[in-house]
């Protein structure tokens, strides 16, 4: 940058802003999709712009431009201040931010190979090689890789100056089998990761997973349909991360709990009056938030309000003890825990999710040992369909594979499974946790929130875990009138 950010800050000061932050935000992304070994899509996108956020007379104002010249950026600063002044006349209390020290520095996420240094045809070749492992045993294949390099430069009136760069990559391979009785698909369980191109090529055991998939998919197609009822579930981290995301991650967002998302993403049952007393789950349940985990998708050096990355507890021994906060949600006299994020220059920072992870039992068992302890249950692997209500009570999840457990042993797959539960009842039914050897960092690139809509990437670590007596639906029966 050549001083345009300081020019914008000066313009904000001149128009009476008590708080002003100027954020230059660049996102480079690639998306490659193959279908039956043929390329369907290969795009490269670079998005850059400047967002200016101000507080004038106790009201927010935000403006952005995709032009980086001094005139455009100072005009954005002026428009942000004008919008704030206009909105200050609308009903409502003044916005108050938690005080935070100024910060300066640089943060670069850990990665080995810059995905944008890799020629597109190499990416296509790698995906095709993966599909070739699948293709002989299935009817159709597809492969996708999405990779993002996100760079921000944040300055504010208080004097903070922060430059950050983060990378994330997610390859997915899918196989489809068609029989006279119907069709089904199966996708790889590798989560997105805060890594570079090394993740697509070597940081996951792709060949082994791809080689097993055709056989597993055949078994699934021929598997018996589940009998609806209550089962003990052993949930693999490749599935449980998403349940944590929806039923704990979003439920402990303070802005939701205060109603800020009531028109859109929803609210939360975990309201502030219950902090410190709400029995969220069994005493085995310890959930930690952090923005520091290596390769975490929500890992940063500082958030988009210049608050340093940190770690804290959300649920301790089964009790709600913490929230995710930005400076407004923390409020006067309190401290933010650094959860402000905007997904592009054109969007305003809002409270977004840190990495939220269920802690393993320190000397807990392997997944096989958890299965051995279940008399009549289902072992669920991989995520698929998900849905939860607007207050984070009622959820329904499916998965990639459902292995029937009888007398402590896996006895083959079943199909048409969905588990449906109330969040508090589900976590209250947590009866056993795997040890650190079962722990895995899952996550998503596409967590949505806010209006206008924003997406954020976030990781969730967890061990394998056992939940007793969970309601399991037969999805075929659900579809019948």
């Amino acid at each position: 940058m050549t001083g345009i950010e300081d020019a914008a800050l000066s313009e904000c000061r001149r128009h009476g802003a008590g708080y002003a932050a100027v954020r230059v935000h660049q996102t480079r992304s690639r998306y490659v999709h193959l279908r039956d070994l043929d390329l369907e899509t290969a795009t490269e996108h670079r998005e850059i712009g400047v967002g200016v956020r101000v507080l004038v007379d106790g009201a927010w104002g935000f403006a952005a431009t995709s032009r980086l010249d001094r005139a455009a950026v100072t005009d954005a600063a002026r428009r942000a201040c004008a919008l704030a002044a206009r909105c200050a006349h609308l009903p409502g209390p003044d916005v108050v931010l938690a005080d935070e020290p100024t910060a300066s520095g640089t943060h670069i996420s850990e990665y080995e190979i810059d995905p944008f240094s890799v020629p597109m045809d190499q990416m296509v070749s790698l995906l095709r090689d993966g599909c070739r492992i699948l293709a002989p045993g299935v009817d159709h294949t597809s492969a996708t890789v999405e990779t993002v390099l996100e760079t921000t430069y944040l300055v504010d009136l208080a004097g903070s100056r922060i430059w950050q760069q983060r990378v994330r990559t997610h390859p997915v391979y899918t196989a489809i089998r068609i029989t006279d009785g119907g069709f089904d698909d199966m996708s790889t369980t590798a989560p997105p990761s805060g890594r570079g191109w090394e993740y697509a090529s070597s940081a996951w055991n792709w060949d082994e997973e791809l080689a097993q998939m055709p056989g597993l998919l055949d078994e699934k197609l021929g598997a018996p349909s589940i009998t609806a009822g209550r089962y003990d579930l052993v949930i693999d981290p490749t599935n449980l991360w998403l349940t944590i995301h929806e039923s704990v991650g979003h439920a402990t967002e303070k802005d939701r709990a205060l109603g800020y998302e009531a028109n859109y993403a929803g609210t939360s049952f975990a309201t502030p009056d219950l902090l410190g007393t709400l029995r969220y789950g069994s005493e085995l349940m310890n959930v930690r938030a952090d923005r520091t985990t290596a390769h975490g998708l929500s890992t940063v050096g500082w958030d988009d309000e210049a608050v340093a990355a940190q770690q804290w507890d959300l649920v301790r021994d089964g009790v709600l003890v913490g929230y995710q906060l930005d400076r407004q949600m923390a409020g006067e006299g309190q401290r933010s825990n650094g959860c402000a994020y905007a997904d592009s220059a054109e969007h305003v920072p809002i409270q977004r999710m840190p990495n939220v992870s269920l802690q393993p039992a320190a000397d807990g068992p392997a997944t096989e040992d958890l299965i051995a302890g279940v008399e009549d249950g289902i072992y669920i692997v991989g995520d698929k369909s998900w849905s939860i209500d607007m207050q984070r009570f009622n959820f329904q999840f499916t998965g990639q594979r459902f292995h029937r457990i009888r007398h402590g042993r896996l006895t083959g797959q079943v199909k048409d499974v969905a588990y449906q539960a109330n969040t508090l009842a589900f976590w209250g039914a947590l009866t056993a946790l795997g040890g650190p050897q079962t722990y895995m960092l899952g996550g998503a690139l596409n967590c949505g929130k806010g209006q206008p809509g924003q997406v954020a990437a976030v990781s969730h670590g967890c061990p394998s875990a056992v939940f007793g007596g969970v309601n399991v639906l037969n999805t075929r029966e659900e579809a019948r009138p």
Partner: protein
Amino acid sequence: MSASGTAQPALEVLGEGCVVVRTTHTQNLRWANSALTTNGDTTTSTMTAIAMDAANGAVSVVSGQVPDVAAATALAEQAKRAVTTADRVDAVQLVDGGVSPDFDAGPEPIDDPATQRMVTTVDVLLRQPEAQFGYAELDRTTVHLATTAGTRYRHAQDTVRLEASARTDDASTWWGANRLPDDVQAVAVQQGLRLNSQSTTNDLRPGRHPVILTPSAVADLLIYLAWSANARDAAEGHNVFSAPGGSTKLGQRLTSRSIRLFADPDHPGLQTGHRAVVEANSSMESVFDNGLPLSACDLISDGRLTNLRASRATGQRFGIAPAYLADNLILHDPAGYGDLDDLVARTDEAVLVNCLWYIREVDPQNLLLTGLTRDGVYRVRDGEIVGATGNFRFNVSVTDLLSRIRDASAPTACLPREWADWFTRTEMPALLIDDFNLSSPSEAM
């Protein structure tokens, strides 16, 4: 630098291909607990350069911000370099989509009276006695499409979105529109009445019930159906529109009612662009179809599956007529009449659902969707709303429910709740549907 001015030199670099310049001015206001929370005034402009080699089935797509001609030609050069190593895709020759008489005109910003009207509308909502939550957005996007086949197309599209929720400790409502209302106070009063009607509760057990879906709720389900109407998937045997033996269900009757589900760029009140503008290939659209004329296209007509979505290349490959949808979706049921209140008045027993939320696909074989009811679920008896009930998770096959429509209102313009981030221009009737699976209760409100 004008969009048309940057497009021409970029095209010259490409030799064969397309340039899309998308310039957007957006203003928004958001509120919660009867106070403004965030806002925004954003201008963005993005160029997508699509280098093609149709003879060899090669394409490369690169996009980014281009403030001047030098940046535009640099972007085109990047795309051109990449096409030399690009992989094979299904390709056809570009069409000449003609020349818009206003192609050289620049993008159009939102004018100040429109902004003031939005602020005034929100001000009225914020002064209502019930706690108010919501979102208002004005968006004006100007698209310039230029292709080496001669297309010079310009289209300016206004998109309006207004959502208003009112809440008390134990009740909530939602109302949405794809245009600013003339009398927002009247809307607010109506929402207050809906809140009051929830003071009487009426328990309902989970199970299959007759359900009245509002136009907004119908839109959310049928948008998903339109997104799933993938011709290639159907022809290959792996979506709900596949038929046994490797064919599709094209021509098959989906419902005994003579419904028509369609998109039409000229539909009154929901007008959209008349040319295909495709910035990335997908299984239903191709960049090689940029400039293709759009007209009314039926997915379902007279109750039968009429079209599935396919590019020209996909259509050629699978022997299916290519079909592109304009950026709107309309459902007409010729047997429907009256408005939502009339439909309620002639219903003996049903559950009225105001909104659907968190809709996700459970099983593509039968297009089984799950989700939640939201912000108003009412018992209807003998033509009247007799009280409210709690929310439910539903599990329904969208294609199956078309066969269980018992009654319908006349269609009306509506804003979908779940999908409004991506799709706002819909016109739907309210529908009375038998055996709608309210699978389990939700404590949420």
